[in-house]
């Protein structure tokens, strides 16, 4: 199968008070299309940093990251943004919905930004998929945490991405709601590839692949 993502000896150093601090010390991995991958690890181990690098939100210090066969190294910010717009959806831990927009408007936003067609119908359909057809015109402040995260997932799905990154998507939710969100995300595979950073071992165990980030390296969990 074609890998949608390849990590080859990825190193990343952050700068703290002017001193370089190694976070990732040679990560190698590849993710095949249609699978689900959970990245687990202790707090501060660099999971979110790794996710940012994989999504092209930051640039590794050395090594290579290839998304859909294209190397991210050397790409401009706008080229990476275009790649994300075309292939990637992103779900944040704290939802990151636009407060002044309704659920429907939040989901329509990516399509509007890229001038696509049938925007409203597509957004309504995706919101229907996450079972929020009755909340289309509600603002984020009047939605529960679970509902907000479902809106965020709908926003990530609406542009029909091939790959979804989720950064601790159930971190701010209660157990029941978290399970509902987990099932929703897992149901996206195999049509979509899912890469999720999580502390929730139960959620991780339901993913097809699991890796543990330990001392800056990825260790597959069997």
């Amino acid at each position, binding site marked *: 199968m074609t890998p949608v993502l390849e990590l080859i000896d990825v190193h990343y150093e952050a700068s703290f008070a002017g001193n370089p601090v190694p976070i990732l010390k040679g990560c190698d991995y590849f993710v095949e299309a249609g699978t689900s991958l959970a990245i687990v690890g202790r707090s501060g181990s660099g999971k979110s940093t790794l996710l940012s690098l994989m999504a092209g*939100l930051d640039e590794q210090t050395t090594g290579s990251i290839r998304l859909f066969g294209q190397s991210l190294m050397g790409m401009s910010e706008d080229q990476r943004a275009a790649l994300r717009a075309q292939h990637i959806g992103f779900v944040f831990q704290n939802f990151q919905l636009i407060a*002044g927009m309704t659920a429907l408007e939040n989901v329509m*936003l990516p399509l509007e930004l890229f001038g696509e067609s049938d925007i409203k119908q597509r957004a309504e359909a995706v919101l229907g998929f996450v079972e929020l057809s009755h909340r289309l015109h509600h603002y984020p402040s009047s939605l529960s945490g679970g509902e907000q995260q479902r809106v965020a997932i709908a926003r990530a799905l609406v542009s029909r991405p091939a790959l979804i990154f989720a950064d601790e998507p159930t971190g701010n939710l209660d157990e029941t709601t978290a399970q509902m969100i987990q099932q929703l995300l897992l149901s996206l595979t195999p049509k979509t590839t899912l890469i999720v950073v999580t502390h929730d071992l139960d959620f991780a165990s339901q993913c097809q692949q699991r890796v543990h980030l330990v001392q800056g390296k990825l260790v597959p969990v069997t």
Partner: protein
Amino acid sequence: MMSLTLRWFWRSTQRREYLWLWLAVILSSASVTLISQVSQSVRATMVAETVNSMGAQLLLRSTQPIDRHWAEQAAKAEITVGELIQLNTMIAVDDAFQLVSLRAVSPAHPDSRWLTFEAGAQDQVVIDQGLAQKMNLSIGQTLALGKQTFRIVGIHSHQDPLAMMVNQLAPPVFIPISQIDRLGLTGEGSRISYEHSFLGKPDAVEKLYAALQADKRASWQLIRADQSSQDLENTLSTAWLFLDIAALTTLLIAGLSILIASRFYLQRWVQTLALLRALGVTQARLFGVFGGQLMLLAIMASLIGTAIGVIGFYALVPVLTLWLPSFTSDIPWLPMLMGMVSSSLTFWAFTLPLFWRMIQTKPQQLFRQTAHSVAQQRLAWLISGILLVLVMALLLPAHLRWWVMLALGLTALLLWGFALLLQRVIFRLQPITRGWLRLVIANLKQDPLSLKLQFVAFGLVLYLLLLLTLVHVQLIHHWQASLSDTTPNVFIINVQPEEVQDVQQQLQQHQLSAEMIPMLRARLIQHNDRRLSPEDFSAGRAKRLLEREANMAILSDLPAHNTLLESITNDQRQSQLPAVSVERGMAELFQIRPADRLVFDIQGQTITFQVTAIRDVVWQSLQPNFFFIAEPWTQEALPLTYLSSFYDNLTPSTSQALKASLQQASPSLLWLDVRALIDQIQQLMQQASTAIRFLYGFALLASILVVMSATLAAREARYRQWLVLRTLGAQQRQLILIGLAEYALIGLLAGTLAALLAQLSLALISVYWLALPIHWDIALWLWSLGLGSGSLVLIAVLSQAKLWSMRPRALMHHNE
């Protein structure tokens, strides 16, 4: 506790945590200090100039001799007393005669400063330069004055165009006061005015003024150097009011910036306060630690602002000196105190309610951010209101304080109403917009209070700047429009009937068209059955009009530039009385109605007229205008003279030659050239308008601070949003477009608000002040919208440029 307060304050200051609060307080104290210092110094300079030109702090003028004891009383108080006796009389040089204003002065009188009499000699006279030119006189020549012959020992010239014009009517001639009795001109029936000038220590002169005021006679006129002219005083009062309002506007707008910034900073304190309360720190201690920090900020920032204001003032001194050559800077203590106190009060007025709320709230409320007690808030708002009133009381003159407060309150309500309306309109528009515009409106919706404050602050300043510019332009345009290209710029008066033909011929030879208008000098003495006396009127204008003779034209038809307002019917006409029409202002002053009877003293003859019409006159048209126009009647024995005006387009030398030739043909003819006067007025208007607009620049800076504070308050949300957009795949140009469009929209809406208000104000000014039809000023709207959006886009570029180039990961760190 003090050391903790100081430590935290120092730490926060080092981290530039309260930057926008610092800037707002600094700006407000700097602007108040600078504006107060400018107005105080200009005021002091103008009083000093008046004292200098009057040569005294106080003048007592009287139509009756002044009792000696006033001079003695003044001398006892070490006040220098100058004396002057003035009367109009004729001089003779060979066969030529000329009306002059004879001024007999004592050595201590201010006029003596420029007179050079030789000690001991009795037959000396100093004459005006205009008289010297007119009669071809020079030092050493003689002239006859009353029963005596005098030798010219000096020629005095005046630089002021207005004085030069007035002096043309009756040029001044000076003699020592000791000579006046020898002339035989001061007998009974002579119209003489007496004057005492007083110059001494301000306290002593003030005491003397109080004593004179207490014993004031009907024949007296008291003139103080600081209130030398009612018209000038009114004009200056208006200018001071403009300056005071400029300072107040800056303070209030800076206050809005303080409000937005303190909301942001105090919000950051919430968790700390809640934690400290939960740990058992008392409310009083919290008040001390956090209130102390705010107090330190207010004091230090206002000190810095005050220092900047004083430095700014001294930097401006060279510019002010260009405007007022004798400009002297007054001691800056009072403006400094004003700057410090008013900015500190403004700071607390806008910070207190929020701070109060934070301190009063229970820990769990702070953690959960739940509602606060309404009663507690009311008290805080009440204290804020009192502080604001104190600020206004500090800055505004007492007699206008309540009116200005009322006007400001109403304006604030109006602005708030407009801002609310605009906000609703754009929020309603959101569903029908899409893409970046929808996102922009969504951003604006996040903090409606901040949005309205930005509308109000920026809209108000734009409005004031537009209005100042437009009123200035409108006034000048209106004035210039009322003057055609051939508006008269030269007046000739006092032409004798037998000289009219010759004068007319000479003018025609130069293709100058000029109608010769016959006129009389007439003094109004009775209205219907009521004798009119200056003592019966309190208005200075009425007094002056009754004390002097006015020009009365004799014309069959009203001049074209006069508008008939009211007239009598044929039934009301009393044909045995000559008819007179009266100018509207004069009619209002003496409550004259059509068909009333007016009695005039015309060179000793008493003649009764019937008022047949009331008419309106455009005084600024520079056409010959008259308070009274009588229809021709039998006027055999009346001393008529002729007046004319024309547009002089000749070369200066030809014009000068014509003037000399006319004065030869008509020795009593007076040539009044008003060009220098018009230039002087225009220059003054331009300078005053520029100065006022410059000072409103502070208000503009304050409004920019409001927008910057709002930008700061929304910064966290902006970082978050841009991270989301970048993650969703938005391109940099889309981020820039969204960032700019948000500000451009605020600018456009603030511009709309400003244009709307300016258009409304202009319409009111047009109708009620200039009596012009209302017109839709497209340029006003374009300027307002362009300036509003343009300046805010500039602010957006300055405040966001760094953000646009940030990597998504860096944005993420800001959010962590």
